């Protein structure tokens, strides 16, 4: 595709920009016990979440995160954008922006980034695949030369109400996210955001980016089986990955790194490992695989973009950070996943990032570092 990523940056509970990357590489964990973030609502809940520190529980968390993201991640070059596309799952569950991330982002931009506000047209909503899909859809539009420069902004927040739903459903871990670990009990939900500019060759000439990443292709699929549980056969997540490789014109052996969705729920990790084996076959053993939710949490509708950005950074640094939280590999999954405390050398400049969301939406994107 004629689509490139420039100025990718992410904001998480483990920091942002260079600081975030160093923390990941050092194997640090940005998770905090839920009862320290929401002491009144969850006084006895010690399970860990990836909450941004210093946010008020009385005001819109999404708006507060947007302020941090806007200040830390959106560069001066964003004024070259011709379109701003958002991605989020639900945003706040309480207050005036409850369930309305579109309205929240619009309000933020109008009051804080007035030159970008008129360019903001909509938010992609595909649950936890939203952040991956906004990249893919922006790639379509620059590839078709409808625009030359698009800004993609994925944000989501974890308020106490959303955590309550996940605790009740059993998707929040009892202790913390342990992706691909034999003792995994769930994920660690979190919050944060990412921003990147998606450009074609023409857009690339307008910008002077130090680092450029090519979007080789993407794939999407829907299980169409269950609204909250993944397809246990792994067939449709594998279909998304296979479509991404096919669209990229690449073979499984061309891929050097996989940033897995790796939520840490027993079922997700099992399904995802089946899907990866189906899509990659024996070549999977030669690929560095990791997951980052044990370090920064599951960033809901922002997770896809943030993890695609971490994929870019891993490829340009040629190192996959260890999977924080993973101590005892679930050998039945037979994945070459990098355990916590170690980083692994990436031997090829092409990576894959995957997301599996509620509703059975599966997304995969293939990225190449051109640096």
């Amino acid at each position, binding site marked *: 595709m004629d689509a490139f990523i420039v100025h990718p940056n992410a904001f998480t509970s483990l920091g942002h920009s260079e600081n975030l990357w160093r923390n990941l590489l050092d194997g640090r964990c940005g998770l905090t016990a839920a009862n320290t973030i929401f002491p009144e609502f969850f006084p006895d809940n010690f399970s860990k979440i990836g909450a941004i520190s210093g946010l008020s529980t009385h005001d819109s968390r999404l708006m507060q995160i947007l302020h941090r993201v806007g200040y830390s991640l959106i560069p001066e070059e964003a004024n070259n954008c011709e379109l701003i596309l958002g991605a989020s799952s639900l945003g706040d569950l309480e207050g005036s922006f409850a*369930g309305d991330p579109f309205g929240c982002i619009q309000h933020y931009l109008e009051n804080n980034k007035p030159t970008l506000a008129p360019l903001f047209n909509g938010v992609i909503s595909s649950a936890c695949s939203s952040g991956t899909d906004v990249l893919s859809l922006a790639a379509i539009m620059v590839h078709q030369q409808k625009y030359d420069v698009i800004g993609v902004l994925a944000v989501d927040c974890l308020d106490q109400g959303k955590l*309550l739903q996940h605790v009740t459903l059993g998707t929040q871990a009892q202790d913390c996210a342990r992706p691909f670990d034999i003792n995994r009990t769930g994920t660690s939900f979190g919050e944060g955001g990412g921003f990147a500019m998606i450009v074609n060759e023409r857009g690339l000439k307008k910008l002077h980016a130090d680092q450029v990443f090519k979007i080789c292709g993407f794939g999407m699929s829907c299980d169409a089986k269950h609204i909250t549980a993944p397809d246990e056969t792994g067939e449709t997540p594998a279909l998304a990955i296979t479509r991404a490789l096919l669209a990229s014109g690449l073979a499984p052996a061309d891929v050097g790194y996989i940033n897995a969705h790796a939520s840490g729920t027993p079922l997700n990790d099992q399904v995802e490992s089946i899907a990866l084996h189906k899509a990659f076959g024996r070549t999977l053993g030669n690929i560095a695989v990791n997951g980052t939710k044990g370090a920064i949490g599951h960033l809901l509708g922002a997770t896809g973009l943030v993890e695609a950005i971490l994929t870019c950074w891993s490829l340009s640094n040629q190192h996959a950070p260890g999977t924080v939280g993973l101590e005892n590999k679930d050998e039945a999954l037979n994945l070459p996943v990098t355990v916590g405390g170690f980083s692994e050398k990436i031997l090829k400049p092409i990576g894959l990032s995957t997301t599996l969301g509620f509703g059975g939406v599966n997304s995969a994107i293939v990225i190449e570092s051109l640096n």
Partner: protein
Amino acid sequence: MDNLNCFFSSYSTPDDIVPVPDLLKGKDKRADTAARIAVLAASNMLQEKPNIDLTSLNVVVINREGCKSHINKVSNGIKNHQPAQGFFVRGGPQTLATYTALALDSHGAAFTFVGDKNILSDAITTAFYLANNIDNGATLITVVVKNHGPGYQANSALILGKSGHLEGVSSLEEKTLHNHLSQAFELDAN
């Protein structure tokens, strides 16, 4: 119009009392009203153009509100520490697309653009691309709005992929499609 590869339909309800669509029988039926409308609009569209392979169909929905009534219930429940049953199957705008895919057994892309008529042109661009680039499939694109009365309006189009015509979308096709879908926004109460 000979090159037109799109088929159109419209669906509306007089009020917000919407039965479970037949296509969801035997499946998860907990769809919120807006998601039910999206499924019913899909069903109506496919009656206009039956006998197409739905396996790789992409489902793209455009909607501004999401499942607002359910979000309100969730917000109220939180005040009393009450989790909302069925929150994750009703709570997000993506359910307008995912319930449609579930109803049709379709394994293409499924996502929702949350926005107003300004997003329409971009949604159409992506819908055409997906139709022509995923398994020679097709894309169902639907705008769902709450109308000026108590009911809903949904305008749909089915875009069939053109083999060997991957990049081209004629301006006539795009304009016709845009006009049809944007008519739903003219009835938008918001």
